Structure formats: C-alpha cells, structure tokens
C-alpha cells in the first residue's frame, strides 16, 4: 500500500462493546474485516470498557458520566468511531451529549464524538457507500431490528440491503418486527417474568418465518433470543449480522459449542 493511499484511509476506532469483548470476540473480528475490506484502518483503543448504559439506565448518572468521559477521551483522534451495536452507538451518539450537557469542559467533546460515531452496518452502507459484500451464507434467515438501532438511529434498510448481496442467503421478514425482544439490558434480570413473555412472543414470530438463521445487529438481543430458542429446543441458529456479512461460517452460532 502506498504512502498516499494510507493517508486517505479513514482511521476508524472500533468500539468493541462489552458484550462482544466478553462473550463473542468473533463479532469484533468480523467488524474489523468488514471495515478493512472497505478500506479503513482500524484501531482498538485499550482504554474502552463499556458505553455506560447499565449505569445510565439505572439512574446512576455520576458513574455513567465518568464512563462517558473516559470513552470520549479514548476515541478522540479518529475520523470515525464504529460499534457493532445500535444500542451502544446510540448511547454515545444520542445520550452522551445529554449526559454531559451541564459540563462545560466535556459538552463540546461529547458532541464532537457524537457526530463521528456510527453503528457498523449503517456506517458501511451510509458513509462508506458499501452496497455489497463478498460473502456466501446459504440459509433462510430472518432479521430482528433491535430497538435502539431502529428507532434512535433509523437503521432498517441498511442491513437488508447488504444482506441481499450475500450469496445463498434468503431473508424472510419477521412479523411484529418493531417489537422489542425483551432484553433491555438490566431489565431482563430485574423483571424476568415480563422479559420472558416478550422473548417468548419474539421467538414464536421467529419460528413462524421458518428461518433457520436469526440475525441482528446487537449481541445483547441475540443472546436473549438465542438463549430462549435454545431453551425451547429450537433448531434456529443465531448470529450477529456482521459475522454473516464477513462470511464467517466457521465460528459456532451463538450458544453453540464446538461439539454442537
């Protein structure tokens, strides 16, 4: 690669998200592959942990603000910041500026980060203008629109457009597609019975599509839905949309072991 083109490569900071870091690094590597294939130079700042939603949504503004400042500082100096999650991206984009609006030292920095942060698939489609991927994944799939991505970031068409270019992948629309899967971060453990009703309705809709593969852009929702599918003895496999777009067919599906 010439010196010149290296200078033109957008420098992208990957916000891994705590769930991907802890549970499913393959999503992070799929994101890196997609970004690199699209001509980005990817770095992963070590000073990141979590976006702070558990604190923010539990009413703990002080810890949420401290985590926000730490995240902002870690991601200054990138052209773009990308997260393989609509929920975490929306936290940084929509809620950091609100969280730090009364902090004169940080308000501007929060807004500058907000302007540069993106959810992975919408970044590929809307910013990098990627309209197809070189991947094959023969399966009948259905796609769950996670709430934050759908409503806060208006992500709906982008994943469908890119998935349409995956060889062999057939996409069936999920009935009641705008309904929450029942994850909601700490919600699912604070009110387990309600969350269970929600995820039960969701997996019934998933089963009704006769899909063999469930895709979504947020690992939290995927762990919730795949956990319920597995508990029900369902054969439906769950994967992060980035893994399919990156053509990763080797990694076992969510909640499946090396021995199936």
């Amino acid at each position: 690669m010439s010196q010149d083109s290296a200078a033109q490569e957008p420098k992208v900071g990957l916000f891994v998200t705590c769930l991907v870091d802890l549970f499913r690094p393959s999503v992070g590597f799929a994101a890196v592959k997609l970004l690199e294939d699209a001509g980005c130079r990817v770095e992963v700042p070590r000073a990141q942990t979590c976006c702070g939603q558990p604190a923010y949504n539990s009413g703990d503004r002080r810890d949420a603000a401290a985590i926000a400042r730490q995240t902002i500082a870690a991601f200054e100096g990138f052209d773009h910041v990308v997260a393989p999650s609509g929920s975490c991206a929306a936290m940084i984009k929509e809620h950091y500026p609100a969280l730090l609006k009364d902090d004169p030292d940080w308000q501007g920095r929060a807004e500058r980060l907000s302007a540069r942060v993106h959810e992975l698939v919408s970044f590929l489609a809307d910013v990098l203008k990627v309209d197809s991927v070189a991947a094959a994944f023969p399966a009948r799939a259905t796609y769950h629109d996670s709430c934050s991505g759908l409503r806060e970031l208006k992500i709906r068409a982008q994943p469908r457009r890119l998935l349409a270019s995956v060889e062999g992948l057939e996409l069936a629309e999920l009935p009641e597609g705008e309904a929450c899967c029942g994850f909601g971060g700490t919600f699912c453990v604070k009110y387990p019975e309600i969350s269970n009703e929600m995820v039960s309705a969701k997996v019934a809709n998933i089963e009704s599509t006769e899909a063999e593969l469930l895709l979504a852009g947020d690992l939290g929702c995927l762990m919730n839905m795949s956990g319920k599918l597995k508990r029900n003895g369902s054969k439906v496999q769950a994967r992060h949309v980035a893994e399919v777009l990156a053509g990763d067919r080797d990694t076992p599906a969510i909640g499946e072991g090396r021995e199936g």
Partner: protein
Amino acid sequence: MQSTSHAFPDNARAAVKNPQLKKALNHVKAGFIDKRAKAAAKLPEFEDLRDAARDIKNHTLAHLDLYLEAYEARITEQGGHVHWCGTAAEARDKILEICRAAGAKTVTKGKSMIAEEIALNDHLEANGIEPIETDLGEYIIQLRKEPPSHIIAPAVHLTKDQIEADFRDHHDHLPAERNLEEPAALVAEARGILRERYVQADVGITGANFLIAENGASVIVTNEGNGDLTQTLPKVHIVVASLEKVVPTLEDVSVILRVLARSATGQEFSSYTTFSTGPRRAGDLDGPEEYHVVLLDNGRSGMLGTEYQDALRCIRCGACMNHCPVYHAIGGHAYGWVYPGPIGAVLTPSLIGVEEAGHLPNASSFCGRCEAVCPMRIPLPKMMRHWREREFERHLTPLPLRAGLGVWAFFARRPALYHLFAGLKTRALGALGRRRGRFRKLPLAGGWTAHRDLPAPQGPTFQQLWAERKRDGQGRPAASA
C-alpha cells in the same frame, strides 16, 4: 383509588400466569397497532400535525395560569360555574355537594379518567348516590367492581365469554335462555338497560378531552354517544377535568383532534366530538339547567416547570400502552393505579409518589416504541430514566442492583483492571461452557437462566485476542480456539 403499584413485581407475575388475560391482551396488538399505522400513513401531514400539537401544548403549559383564567371567564359569562379543587378529596366533596343540592339519587357518568383518579364512584356510593357508568367498557367493569385496565378500552383485559357471564349474573331479570353468543347481542342488551338509566338520572358527569379558552367549551370525544346522552338528558351536568386540559382556540383543538383518534383507534375521527359551553339557553328544548366544571390540580401544578412537565401534554389516546411490549405482557391492572402503560409509568410517581410507584418507571426495556407513536411527542423513556435517577439519588434503588452496579462501575471506570478481570472471568467461563456453548444454570445469573440459556463466552476476550494479533503482526487468531 387505592394503589397496589408497590406490589408491581407480584402483580406482574400473577398477570403472566393468567391465561384469560393473555387471550384478551392479544386483542390489543391485533386491534390497535395496524390501524394506527394505516391511519398515520394515510395522512401526509401527520408528522407535521404531531409537531404542531406538541407546540400548542407547550405554549399553553407555559401560560397555563392565564389560559385557565380566560377559560373560566367565558364559562362564567355563559352561566356555568367553575370549581377549583386542589386535591382528589376536594373534588369528590365538591361533586357530592352539587349532586346533593340537585337532590340526586342516581347519576350517569361518561368515561372519565379523572373520575377514576379521584375515586368518585366509591365516594358517591358511600353517600347514598348511585353512579351508573354508561361507556360500555366502563359499565362492564363497574359490574365486576374492577378498575379500568386501559385508558380508552377499560375492559380490554376481558374476553367476550367473561362479559357474557357477567351479563347473565347481573341482568337476572332477563330470560336465562337468551342468546348472547355474538358481541352484538351483548351491546344491544347493555344499550337497552342503559337507555332508561339516562332518563332517570338527576345528574350527568363527564370528563373532558379539552377545555377551550377562547369560548369556554369543554370537549368530549366518544364513539358510543354515551357521553352526549349523559350530559344532555339530566338537569345538571358536571364536567370533571384536570388543569392541563386547556387549549387556546378551536384551531388549536382541531390540530390535536386530527392526531387523537388516529393515534387512539386508528379512526380518522371519532364518531362524536362534542363542544359544550354551559347550561341550556333561552328557548332551548333540552340540555342541562346547571353546568359545573370541577377543575382539578391534584399534583399537576407541581409537575409544571420540572423534567416531568412534558407529560402534561398527554391527551390520553392510549397509543403508548397499545404499542408497549410490557403492557402486552401484563395488561393494565398490574401497574396498580389509574394510569397504566408508559404514560402511567411517568405519571403515577408524579401523582402518588415515587416511593409507592418506583417500580413502574423501572419496568421498561427502553424500547422507545411509546415515544415513537406518542402523538404529542412526549419523551416517555427519558422521563422514566429521570425517575430512576431520582430513585438512585434517594437510595430507593433495590440494594442488590445498587451493589452489583457499584462493583461493575468500579471496574468499568478502570480499563486496565477491567480487562484483567474480564480476561480471567471469560476464560474460566469459556472453558466451562465450551462443550455445549451455553449454560442452563449459573450462579448469580438466575434472573437470566430461569427462562433462557446463557450463551457461554467464546474464550479469551476480544481485547486479549486483538493484543495477540497486534503482537503477531497480522492474521486473525481463531476466535474461540
């Protein structure tokens, strides 16, 4: 109304185990969501109207004292009476006083959430006056001695079979062998019974969807026509309304009416929208001889000027609960007080205290669908989060959650320690769960594993693998090797 909001988790657990309720609640999704979406899609100006409706209410709330004075002046000129009441008790007593002065034995009632809020029926009954609900849904739940479970569909928690059984129990003067198989037969039976009650009643009590400052009109919106019979036939009409119902002009109310029915039932307009401005006038052949407006504060003035002010824009259309996955799962009664669903989760702590109703704003996945459909663009999740902040500040957050959060935040604020511990923990869990790839049970994860498996970590964390990749120069390490 006595609150059971403090027992929300128990209420919710009971609700999800109730098969009748589950069957009835299916009608909420089927009956409201698509109809609203179609009605909104059919009107190109719908989103602009939502903005305009929000702005009208914001302007009105910022001048609420003055609009109420203007409204009152017009009512008084037109021969009506305005009664200002600070609390539920004052409003109940004022209504009782008016009923007594009219020598009332029975009163008919149109649907009013404010009447529920002040527990009017119990108060009238305790004082020897019989209240008769005339909205079909309200009539049904009055027979059952239940509160409404929805703000526009009070009996939505019931199936047709339950309603048939109630009618057979209570209408025992009718032939036992009559056919009540079809909903139409149930509607006809209620119609027949209530017609006589309209004429017998001495006082008619209605709520108000809006009060109009320009001309002193109170507005009711119904599909059944029960509110109109209630306010036209008896010799006294009492309107019970809360302060924030006022809007400036007929033009303003026209904007809001355009989003109301579409958001509520998916109709373009409800069957009956009625503007009434006072008692009967010279030469009128019908209409009430007396017209009273009981204007209730009951905590609203304290919401004004706070982060909860936006909730005062609510027009009680029910769209938030119609689209709420939590409401779909548990119905309205579990919320424990008058207002269920997302708007209830914001209003209830404001009106009866966060100590009593603190669960409500917590029992949300923040999916945001309520805000997406709210015609008045009320930022419901944001306000629920404000309540969580108030609870956290006041140490009302449950201790295990607070403690867990504290440990988590300690690490999340220290990236080096965080990555060290995360690496150790996921490696251990990954090794434990590698074969099956998931856990059916795990210590401290009972909230999760009671209902679903927990996917096991793949092994090392992304950060560990990324460090290896950087160290080795290139090449992607096998993620779960």
